[in-house]
């Protein structure tokens, strides 16, 4: 795919262009190219294939080093909180997670924690129906804290394995909305044993450098335990992930690759890099 057959400025320019167009961003791209320049000089590398390998190794090393396995409680309720800015795919991801865990033999309950947006409760209720799990919901305009409280108690009563809580999309720069989210987390913490056990930030693969700001500010408000990157079935590469990892070092647990309930995959760094280089 990349045209240069020898190491020269052309090859490094091509790599720079590829990284920029994949949304890797200025700072990370400069660091990577400085590193490659240094290696080429120090080790007098002449084989372009070696440069690709060096780059791939560097990128791989920047992806989170923790397990990307979901944090499931043994013999106790697992609470997952799904957060992120507007329209990134939170509700659809919850449907996919519900499907994933239900297929694995877990009993899943959903909480319609978006009490604000038009037809948000309807949307998650339809998904619950399709996946075959119940949805705890209140009235549109209700308090999300109260909804989470009720959902956790319902989850315990029904001896459910996993409770997945949907939240309204919100801009990370809106203090009042971030405060509301903190309140929901505090209630979940109080009502469940050590929960939420997963706080998943959903990022849209089409997002550019703003993803770093989103990750930083959401993480300042609540401890992000993992990421879900959606819409990777499009042409966006999601390269901003490297800069995001540098900010908050949270593992990508899943990726979204479509709009159906089965369009969820565990994160595979090799495949992600393969797509980046294609």
């Amino acid at each position, binding site marked *: 795919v990349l045209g240069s057959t020898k190491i020269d400025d052309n090859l490094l320019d091509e790599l720079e262009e590829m990284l920029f167009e*994949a949304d890797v961003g200025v700072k990370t791209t400069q660091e990577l190219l400085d590193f490659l320049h240094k290696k080429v000089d120090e080790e007098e590398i002449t084989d372009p294939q070696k440069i690709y390998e060096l780059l791939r190794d560097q990128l791989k090393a920047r992806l989170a080093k923790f397990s990307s396995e979901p944090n499931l409680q043994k013999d106790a309720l697992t609470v997952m909180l799904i957060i992120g800015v507007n329209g990134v795919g939170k509700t659809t991801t919850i449907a996919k997670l519900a499907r994933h865990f239900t297929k694995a033999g877990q009993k899943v309950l959903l909480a319609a924690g978006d009490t604000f947006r038009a037809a948000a409760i309807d*949307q998650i*209720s339809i998904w619950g129906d399709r996946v075959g799990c119940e949805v705890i919901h209140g009235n549109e305009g209700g308090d999300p804290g109260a909804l989470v409280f009720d959902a956790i108690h319902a989850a315990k009563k029904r001896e459910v394995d996993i409770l997945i809580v949907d939240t309204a999309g919100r*801009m990370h*720069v809106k203090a009042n909305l971030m405060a509301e989210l903190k309140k929901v987390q505090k209630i979940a913490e109080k009502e469940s044993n050590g929960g939420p056990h997963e706080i998943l930030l959903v990022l849209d693969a089409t997002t550019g450098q703003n993803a770093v*700001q989103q990750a930083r500010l959401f993480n300042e408000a609540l401890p992000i335990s993992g990421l879900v990157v959606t819409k990777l079935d*499009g042409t*966006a590469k999601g390269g901003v992930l490297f800069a995001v990892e540098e900010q908050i070092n949270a593992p990508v647990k899943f990726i979204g690759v479509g709009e159906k309930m089965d369009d969820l995959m565990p994160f595979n760094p090799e495949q992600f890099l393969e797509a980046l280089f294609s």
Partner: protein
Amino acid sequence: SLSAKLSAVFDKLRKSGKLTEKDIDAALNEVKMALLEADVNFKVVKNFVKNVKEKAVGAEILSSLTPTQQVIKIVLDELTSLLGKERSKIQISPKKPTVIMMAGLQGSGKTTTTAKLGLYMRKEEKKNPILVACDIYRPAAIKQLQVLGDQLSMKVYAGEAGTRPAEIARQAIEHAREHDFDVVILDTAGRLHIDEQMMGEIKELKEVAQPHEVLLVVDAMTGQDAVNMAKSFNEMLELTGLVLTKLDGDARGGAALSIREVTGKPVKFVGIGEKASALEPFYPERMAQRILG
């Protein structure tokens, strides 16, 4: 900030009164970084910087401006002119109704913008709009538009279950003519520009509805991929304009410049919040400031 970085570059400026090519190159490298950080497409940035350099080299330093201010002024003027010097409004058709079709990727804000545009056309343009629910795929998409319509006491047309989008649009336009609605706004399903079947469907929808406006709804936080998708949508549908949404966040919105460069189409509105009233006309100078940071 860019000003601080440029000032650092120009602190070494000789007292020649003219900006030399070397001074400009250093300054433009800072501008290039700023635009890339703002998500302006890489190739668009290269081209932009090349054009600005031509204007800047040899530019006399105006006595009232520092070299930093001078370069920033040239860059801002160039950005503003690229983003569209004049405000571009909705084209009202001489023969009612004016049909407006929304299009775009999943989650960009089409449904919300459909309602916002309806309110705008009623309040500012004194029209009688009807909103049309052509998204038959997303769970509760039709309900979402109906709820928004109810909140605005605005009529929403929904088809019978199983009706295809093009047919829903055809029926809605007929209904509009019969009941004296002079603006028809079609909400459509989010879709990938690489999904041949869905792109074929929206192309067919356009052929049936014959819209006077085809608006691409773009999320302000969109990165480098903005050019790929905008090009595809434009080639398939021949857009008449763009709406840039979620500008109440802190995304710099460089995608606006990239898309404008690559399609030549004007940004007609910006979304600045979730409420129906959160729609504003597009101001190129403000956007230029925001992109440049």
